[in-house]
């Protein structure tokens, strides 16, 4: 049983979008910690 094109493309593209969201989340959290003086 081999993986079809649709499944392969969906897997890669979904993972790419999720990965691209990570910096936004991390910077948002850092700003929140920075404003509330909770970084350290």
């Amino acid at each position, binding site marked *: *049983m*081999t*993986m079809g*094109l649709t499944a*392969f*493309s969906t*897997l*890669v*593209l*979904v*993972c*790419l979008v*999720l*990965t*691209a969201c*990570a*910096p936004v*989340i*991390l*910077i948002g*959290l*850092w700003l*929140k*910690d920075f404003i509330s003086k*909770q*970084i*350290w």
Partner: protein
Amino acid sequence: MTEASGFALSSTLGLTLVVLFGLAWVLFGWYLGRANKTHEDFALAGRNVGFALASATAMATWVTSNTTLVAPQLTYQFGVWGMVGYSFAALGLILFAPLAARIKRLMPNGYTSGDFVRLRYGQSAWWAFILISVVYAFGWLISLGMAGGILLEALSGLDYHIGMTAILIICVGYTLFGGLRAVIATDFIQALIIILGVVLIAWFLIDTVSLETIHSEVQDNHPQLLDLLFPAAIMFLFNNIFFGLGEIFHSNVWWSRALAFKGSVAFKAYLLGGVLWLPIPIVTGFIALAAPQLGIFPPSADMVGPMVAAEVLGKIGAVVVFIVVFSALASSLDSLLAATSDLVTRDIYHKKLKPDAGDKHLLRFNRYSILGLGILTWLFCLPKIATLGALLNFAGAFVASTIFPIVLGLYNRRLSGRYAALAMTLGTLSGLAGYFVVGFYVAALVSCSVSALICGLGLLLSKHKFDWQQLNEQEEHSA
């Protein structure tokens, strides 16, 4: 390839990037290190790390040479299951989240994972655990040092020994100056660099070659790489889950962070770090499937990722790959140096050799340990002994044996030290037998199964009832 020499970057540009990044990290480490007044500040960043830095350090530390060099290598060898199997290592971070919260609650004054095993299980289990930890830490340190050399060599033709030496000097430098505070702060920046770089490379690859072309080329010429029933690859998937769990559950890299995070931060930071990490090996791994299409047949499988990116994006791609892998290596190497030096300082030096050592003395010794570990790693890296994947999977036989003793030790009063020691020792030996007799892809699986069996027996036969209060060890420092 853009250079006449056949390499994507010139040796001069490669070395310039290393020197610039090196200077920046060491200066940043020195700047952050000024806040370290006590050994606790140096080893555990004052036990006060906030959510953003905590999540980023969990994610960035787990993005290592594994993710940037070995995930493409395994995809090249095992196909789709190679990258999916690698992404399952995120389970280690996600499942460690509740454990981290419990560690913080049970051991508010703890320093290391060794502290836990010593207090919970006693001396014989502690010896087995320390041996496993040391083998794993050196396996990982050596694989990271080697990866630095391989990366520079693959991209710029710079001698392996120069690249390997450079990355070790840089990481030892800023960890020495800044301790865990510098490690965590640099991890945040490195996490951002890694993610943005990986996304950029994947995006350009899809834009240039297209997913359709990659899929049809692989289907026509290497159909086994898309085979969902590829037996060795499925075995690898399960093996990698247990390997990842063993790595995280036992290693002081993750315990010291759990103890360094602010009160309620540990659980959510590990959970978020794991979720953010999950898709990354698939993004880095699929890059390798484009290799045959591009006519790339790397001399060593762990060079496939950097070579594909450099081929598709030319010089800029090579610079991006270089910075991404360099950041990934640094974010793990510094963590490992800090955590292993804590084990040496706290578990071996302070608890075994010099129980009356004062705070300043321990702080000084911790720095010497970082330096010593750096030199030892460098010596082991001098001969290029194995491919990165093989070296790491050898360590799987050791670490997977600790999963059940750690989890049961944290949640169940009944498992005694004798059974925990036996589970770790026999689990490791069986895992090694599996590694040599069957293959690397079963080492962790066998090790974890045998260890689980012995732990199960221990729970049935033991009448031991551990008092959780014993884990809350109070510190006495003379000066």
